[in-house]
């Protein structure tokens, strides 16, 4: 006997809607899973895992989606990002964007930081305003971010393993042409020096 069409339709509808009606973990519950590496409430005590507290909502979501697709290189984040649905990522984004960015003292070279400050002003400040202190929709907070993480990030950009907007690409290339790798390193010392 054929099952009535209406029943099939009903089952199909319920089946299709299951993931939607499934109850999600709370934002805090999800965010807590990150703390083992990124610190309690996303405030990393370093020296390499970035602080994600205070991150912009949009930048968090884009980062996670780019890890999922493999567009953004990583050691472990590509594997971890695949563990969360878009709805869960949005909850985490909301949570971390509301946490205060915790500035922590870290080692830096004062001379290099001073040189970096001038380079930042010339090459980066147009987009990364106020010394990179803001949570931009398309960039992380740079001021006070852990230096090792910034260094990895800049390596990914300069080795063209991570995509960047044309605007940034041009400016970074100009910075490298003018000041070489030392220029990039000076920038990192500058951001690390910002408390």
């Amino acid at each position, binding site marked *: 006997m054929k099952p009535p069409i209406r029943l099939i339709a009903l089952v199909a509808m319920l089946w299709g809607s299951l993931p939607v009606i499934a*109850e*999600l*973990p*709370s934002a*805090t*519950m*999800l965010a*807590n*899973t*990150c*703390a*083992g*590496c*990124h*610190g*309690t409430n996303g405030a*990393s*005590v*370093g*020296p*390499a*895992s970035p602080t994600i507290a205070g991150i912009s909502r949009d930048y968090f979501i884009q980062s996670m989606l780019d890890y999922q697709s493999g567009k953004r*290189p990583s*050691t*472990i984040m590509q*594997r*971890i990002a*695949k*563990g*969360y649905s878009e709805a*869960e990522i949005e909850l985490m984004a909301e949570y971390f964007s509301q946490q205060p960015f915790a500035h922590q003292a870290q080692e830096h070279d004062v001379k290099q930081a001073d040189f970096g400050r001038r380079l930042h002003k010339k090459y980066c400040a147009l987009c990364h305003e106020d010394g990179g202190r803001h949570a931009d929709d398309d960039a992380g907070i740079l001021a006070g971010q*852990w230096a*090792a993480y910034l260094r*990895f990030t800049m*390596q990914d950009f300069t080795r063209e393993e991570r995509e960047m907007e044309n605007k940034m690409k041009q400016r970074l290339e100009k910075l490298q042409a003018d000041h070489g790798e030392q220029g990039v390193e000076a920038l990192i010392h500058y951001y690390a020096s910002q408390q």
Partner: protein
Amino acid sequence: MSSSVITRRQFLTLTGGVLGAAALGFPRLGLGAKKRVVIVGGGIGGATAAKYITMMDPAIEVTLVEKKQTYHTCFMSNEVLSGVRDITSIEFGYDGLKKRGITVINAEVNAIDPVAKTVTLLGNDTLAYDACIVAPGIDFHWDTLEGYNQQVAEQLPHAWQAGPQTQLLRDQLTAMRDGGTVVIVAPPNPFRCPPGPYERASQIAWYLKNNKPKSKIIILDPKEKFSKMGLFTAGWKRYYGYGTGDSLIEWIGVDEGGEVNRVDAKQRIVYAGGAIKGDVINIIPPQKAGKIAVTADLVNEAGWCPVDQRTFESKNHKDVYVIGDASVAAPMPKSGYAANSQAKVCAAAVVAGLQGNPAPVPSYVNTCYSLITPEDGISVAMVYRLGDDGTITKVEGAGGLTPSDASDAMRKREVEYAYSWFKNITHDSFG
């Protein structure tokens, strides 16, 4: 603990008629009677649970009972063996938790009474609880290997509970002659830190390669495969001559006679497929849940604690929860990250329960780093959810191992992230 606190607790117990009020749905009003959570065990799981309960509801009175004044993490202890780090760098105290208002009692727990809802300490002081979280870690089966017992472990260290045992093994390695043999007896599944014995071999090999290059490590294993096996053996080939005639590391699996059945501690000989003499012998015994879990009737026949995996409440006793290595939480491994993650899920469930709310939907994660050299790290990660059948389930498509074709630069980054993970997880637990 000071007796005055007990008196105050007893007073609170006597005035505890507020339970009815809690049931009526305004628990936070509380009328002065605080909800009490007693946590037994101050490792990663117990410390994290204490901290997070206090963060989630500062009105709950949290008491942590731990025998030791300080805790040594097992993770990164293999770097103590290689001399890459000092033992003080894996030692953590409880001042951070005390500053959060958590009462920390350095005492041994004698008994847990799930009916009277009390924890009794050695010396008979008694703590009343509304919820008790048991995080006892592991204990060893001392009686499965002929010639081996707790006293023998003072000569042939296990170093699988970090601290003096770690230092003992390190001292034996530094005292060993060049050309000596280090025997590592790996445990059967399940056990704490599945990649641990193989990271240990890597770290000891690093030490020997740089200090005593004529020496050798033999791993005797009652298993036919092990965690991160492909990545470890590829790393051993690359750095330690694995598979060649003069390899620093030799692995003997169960099929080649790797199962050890007798030890002669005096002669320093282990008997597996054949008799193997070791200058340093590291026996990692078969494991079970920590002793108090047995005393408190929380274990199954296999010696581990079955729990409701949504909340980590014991299947044997109500209002008693078991987290970390002692719990049955497969497919999560018995790891520090897993204990930290489970502690938060459990803390949220306990707090919800005490506030009269249903247990929240859990989310769990695990990340384990292993260091093959100080410049070459590998990892495994997984995200878990509660499956429809109420058990912990891997999220499909998530997690996995470091790709076998990861560049040297990425493997170096894994080391830096491993050190960063170490700083953050210990801060997330004890800080």
